[in-house]
């Protein structure tokens, strides 16, 4: 995945840049492009993610391009970039902030992430309790494995989570 025709068309969006920067706790401007992040990036080989470029693009205010290209969803969140960054630019935190911004703007968030959100709102957990199959093809639930029953969170929890997930009006 690549971000195409970037320099020819893209314009700096200062407003969105401040929004992206507000959402995190990184020292973005300290990045001196040493590329330690990219050299250890899990997604670099397969999906061409280059965290040092993401940092630069945010500095340049090219936020729309980052969000609509889908490149921010190629990160595996292994967090090596943030661990190894000598300047506390924390690229993985920046990518998380950009994902949050994409969600607020309803822009190109992969369907599977939205589905997890609605399941957590509905069930409280990422999925309902599953039956599992052993290697001998026997099917078991928690009770059959002598595990205690799960008690789920109630309505107040769901309402509070929904409030937090609703984007604030400008």
């Amino acid at each position: 995945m690549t971000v195409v025709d970037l320099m020819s068309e893209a314009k700096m969006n200062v407003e969105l840049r401040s929004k992206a920067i507000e959402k995190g706790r990184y020292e973005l401007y300290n990045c001196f492009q040493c590329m330690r992040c990219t050299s250890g990036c899990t997604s670099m080989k397969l999906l061409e993610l280059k965290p040092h470029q993401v940092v630069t693009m945010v500095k340049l205010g090219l936020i729309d391009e980052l969000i609509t290209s889908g490149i921010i969803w190629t990160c595996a969140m292994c967090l090596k970039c943030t661990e190894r960054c000598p300047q506390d630019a924390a690229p993985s935190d920046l990518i998380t902030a950009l994902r949050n911004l994409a969600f607020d703007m309803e822009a190109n968030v992969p369907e599977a992430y939205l589905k997890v959100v609605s399941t957590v709102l509905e069930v409280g957990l990422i999925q309902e309790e599953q039956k599992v199959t052993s290697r001998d093809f026997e099917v078991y639930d928690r009770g059959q494995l002598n595990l205690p029953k799960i008690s789920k969170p109630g309505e107040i929890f769901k309402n509070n989570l929904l409030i937090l997930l609703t984007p604030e009006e400008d």
Partner: protein
Amino acid sequence: MEIGVYWGCMILTSQYAYEMSLREVLPKFGISITDIDQVSCCGTPIKNVNQKAAIYLAVRNLALAEKAGINELLVPCNGCYLSFSEALHYWEKDDTLKRELGSLLAEEGLEFNGNIKLWHTVNFLHDKIGTEKIKTAVKKPLNGFKFVTHPGCHILRPSTIVNVDEPEKPRKLDNLLKALGAESIDYPEKLDCCGGGLLLSHSESALTIAGLKLKAIKSLNVDGLVVSCPSCKVMLGAKQEAVGAIVGEKFEIPVLYYTQLLGLALGIEAEKLGLHLNQSPVDKIIEKLT
């Protein structure tokens, strides 16, 4: 001693073997488990869409733990461990966050004071119980066994937030293996990610990443791969066939939780440790041990 446990979604809803094995092994060291009612998701998947909501989920679970009288909490899943550590980190520093989330917690009659010590399985066994105690408790030593370990990303990084082990040269899981009499083989791909974080958006690439790791492990001819995270276990264990199909290899690598291996070494029956639920061929290990 008593310890609270927050199991997390993956363990509670499908990775039952991790829960079964922990419930079996901890009492052998005089530790009893306190469960927490009405817990929710830890916040990890929600962090991708809204960081504040993720912190709410984390502190709500921690507040429930405090309410249950827990001051030391074992969090066996790497993802949940990072989510809670991060929430604690920001809670301490951000008074606005404290006020806003505090009032949401109050609606459920909850309050979070931040007086909770977090443990992950790896540092709880290694630092709290200790390898010497484990060594003494072993009834069936795993002599002659060779394993590789996969500590997983989120108990190591970022080291400003989590400190289960050294971020770039983790040794605790290896030390724990040695305490059982087994050998732990070092390999260059040890710190490589399982790919789990990409499963939702780029599933084929996620499986390929797992495949690259499994290819490297296959070439080492070890008895198995030892993990401590439910997500890594799914990627490298349960999905082994799918991963093999993507990278054009046949994998028959036993993948199991350290707590399952510990249970075997303590003389606990395989079925009680949920070993019949592992989708990878762990029978090889059980047979070799008997």
